[in-house]
């Protein structure tokens, strides 16, 4: 304990979020504005105004947290409403609602110097416009919104209509790189991907505008050689340890390809392109006196002995804040949560909100694979130690003892080869001397180990939220039958949109001596009797994507 306290004393000054928390005054009341968005993100519908408002949010929040957005039911991040309440309750923010874009411009046009026009028939121009918006303090408008901007005294700064007619994405972003990249942040980059077709959800654009990032949606798919080459140029020119915010483009490339590419450069990935309000969130530290206290169930030095039974542990690792957290049933089962550690830096209040609302059955773990989402088999050896030091430091701040790893670089979506090489496993054991253990995978995987009483266990099952519960029950019972030695350690990944209440019913139907335990207890028990086989990625195992 003394060792940890000493360690924290060393690292706290290095963490900006925590510095803010320590320096925070006793929560003086402050005013801010809030808008409630509907769910219309169609290019031909609600997107142009939302794109304007989100960019405006980034400008308005440059020097103070002034503008917050609450998203409609069904939006990927379901915490914007509860977090608004948290800011009001814990930070004394008095929100005034803005009903229209006109009203928002009335309040915040003062933070813009003009507008830049993008062409809704050529979507990359929206990204270029956002890049310009950050550099020139502009709002982004479609031609139809020019009169609205001008009514608020904004003048044209740039007009992208026609500039890129007939050009490929690679050509467009090559030109934009030549014009703007030198003035953009070289620590952070926005990958404004996500949906294709008739909708876009650029909710993270406020953050990119505020931080003067370069926006793009280049492909990491080798079949798009020009785009891939250009993206590699960006990554090679980012500062070491840089972060890519946003998400890959659905249908153009895959999550696996993009995360592999980012990891190959030792960079960090923070999803998604729909992550909202970072320009607001980043300006609040932890409330005075707040300290992360995880619901540990077993002391670090404790030794448990497994009985001849089946031990189950459940983990939810899809970006906390998506899905299950706000749904009924949470707390009925021991469930571990992959908290997004990077939020210590740019969304501390959200982490505090999760900890504050955690039940004794909610247990936070570190990850994913590093200080943010990465594929460790591809992280350069000379970057691995530094990145994991950062992750280890964050785990100590967040009072976390178990680290989650995921490498889907060779997988096929959430299936297939999600294993770690022995070299990668060696590196993790060396980099995290204080963790109680590691878990691995997203879908099932078969990397397992036990060293110094610290297990590395992969998921044996992934619960697809669409799979009928009677089939989930049969699947789990079949795993229990196939793994007939006792104890059997059955680690289950719960996809974010699963319903906890239905899991409770599944557990009632399991056969044999089954016990659901918290993850830290599970790891201690797994350390006591290794009935699982030590295994690493076999070079002969099939790889869906072989890398770059």
């Amino acid at each position, binding site marked *: 304990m003394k060792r940890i306290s000493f360690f924290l004393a060393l690292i706290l000054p290095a963490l900006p979020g925590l510095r803010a928390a320590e320096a925070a005054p006793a929560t003086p009341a402050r005013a801010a504005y809030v808008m409630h968005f509907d769910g219309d993100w169609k290019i031909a519908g609600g997107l142009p105004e939302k794109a304007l408002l989100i960019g405006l949010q980034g400008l308005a929040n440059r020097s103070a947290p002034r503008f917050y957005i609450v998203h409609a039911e069904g939006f990927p991040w379901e915490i914007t409403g509860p977090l608004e309440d948290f800011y009001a309750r814990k930070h004394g923010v008095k929100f005034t609602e803005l009903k229209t874009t006109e009203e928002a411009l009335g309040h915040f046009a003062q933070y813009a110097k003009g507008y830049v026009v993008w062409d809704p028939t050529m979507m990359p121009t929206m990204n270029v416009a956002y890049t310009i918006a950050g550099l020139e303090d502009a709002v982004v408008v479609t031609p139809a919104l020019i009169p609205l901007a001008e009514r608020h005294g904004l003048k044209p700064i740039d007009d992208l209509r026609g500039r890129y007619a007939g050009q490929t994405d690679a050509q467009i972003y090559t030109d934009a790189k030549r014009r703007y990249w030198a003035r953009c942040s070289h620590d952070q980059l926005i990958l404004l991907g996500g949906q294709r077709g008739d909708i876009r959800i650029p909710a993270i654009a406020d953050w990119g505008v505020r931080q003067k990032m370069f926006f793009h949606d280049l492909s990491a798919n080798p079949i798009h050689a020009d785009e891939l080459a250009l993206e590699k140029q960006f990554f090679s020119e980012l500062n070491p340890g840089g972060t890519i915010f946003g998400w890959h483009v659905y249908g153009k490339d895959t999550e696996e390809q993009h995360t592999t590419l980012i990891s190959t450069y030792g960079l960090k990935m923070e999803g998604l392109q729909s992550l909202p309000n970072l320009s607001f969130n980043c300006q609040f530290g932890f409330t005075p006196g707040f300290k992360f206290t995880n619901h540990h169930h077993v002391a670090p030095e404790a030794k448990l002995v497994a009985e001849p039974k089946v031990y189950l542990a459940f983990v939810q690792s899809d970006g906390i804040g998506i899905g299950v957290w706000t749904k009924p049933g949470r707390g009925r089962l021991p469930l571990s949560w992959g908290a997004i550690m990077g939020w210590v830096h740019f969304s501390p209040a959200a982490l505090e909100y999760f900890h504050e609302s955690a039940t004794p059955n909610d247990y936070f773990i570190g990850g994913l694979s590093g200080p943010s989402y990465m594929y460790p088999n591809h992280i350069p050896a000379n970057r691995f130690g530094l990145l994991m030091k950062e992750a280890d430091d964050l785990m100590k701040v967040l009072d976390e003892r178990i680290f989650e790893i995921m490498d889907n670089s060779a997988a096929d*979506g959430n299936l297939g080869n999600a294993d770690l090489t022995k070299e990668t496993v060696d590196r993790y054991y060396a980099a995290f001397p204080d963790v109680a253990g590691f878990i691995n995978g997203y*879908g099932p995987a078969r990397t397992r180990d036990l060293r110094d009483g610290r297990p590395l266990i992969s998921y*044996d099952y992934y619960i697809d939220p669409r799979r*009928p519960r009677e089939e989930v029950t049969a*699947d789990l019972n*079949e*795993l229990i039958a*196939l793994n007939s030695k006792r104890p*059997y350690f059955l680690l289950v990944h719960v996809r974010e949109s699963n319903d906890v209440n239905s899991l409770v019913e599944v557990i009632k139907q399991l056969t044999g001596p089954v016990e659901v335990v918290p993850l830290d207890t599970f790891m201690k028990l797994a350390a006591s009797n290794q*009935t699982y086989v030590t295994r690493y990625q076999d070079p002969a195992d099939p790889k869906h994507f072989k890398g770059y």
Partner: protein
Amino acid sequence: MKRTLLKLLLVLVLLPLAAVAGDPAINGRWRLDLTRSTVLDGWSTADVAIQLADSKVGFRYDMTWHSTKVAASQTVDTAQAVDLTNFFRIDQRHMAVYAQPKSAARVQATWIDGGRTLRIEAQVPLETSQGNTTMRIYQEFRLQEGNAELVLIELHNTRSRPLVYHFTKVAEAAAKK
């Protein structure tokens, strides 16, 4: 007398052989009807093409998962048990259960129900988190009345709930669709 006995013996031998011949209506390509089948896990679509050749029954499975395409072929023999490496089954891919590479499954195939049902029994070597194990699989491919539908019922010694897959016949030209 000798001649009569010989004839009788011949009848006794040939009758079962005639009885076990598979109905050629099972030949062709069959497509999984997702709406009537056990929900697939980790697969989006499934086709199985079946081809009879004397006592042998050839299977070719064409599976997809989003953009991924997987094809697997195997041949069983109703005249004798065979050892098949990489025995193919429509697996639940979100379970950490893997085929043991290079290990062979002992497979016994039999025509029953007058050749309208092919019964397959296999001892399939698998790998789980606790190491190597064997799953006993029992399959029946049942040709339905009218010969336009085929039902695969699969039981495992480790699963109390049967897996039931309904297939409908499609033209071979549909293979690419």
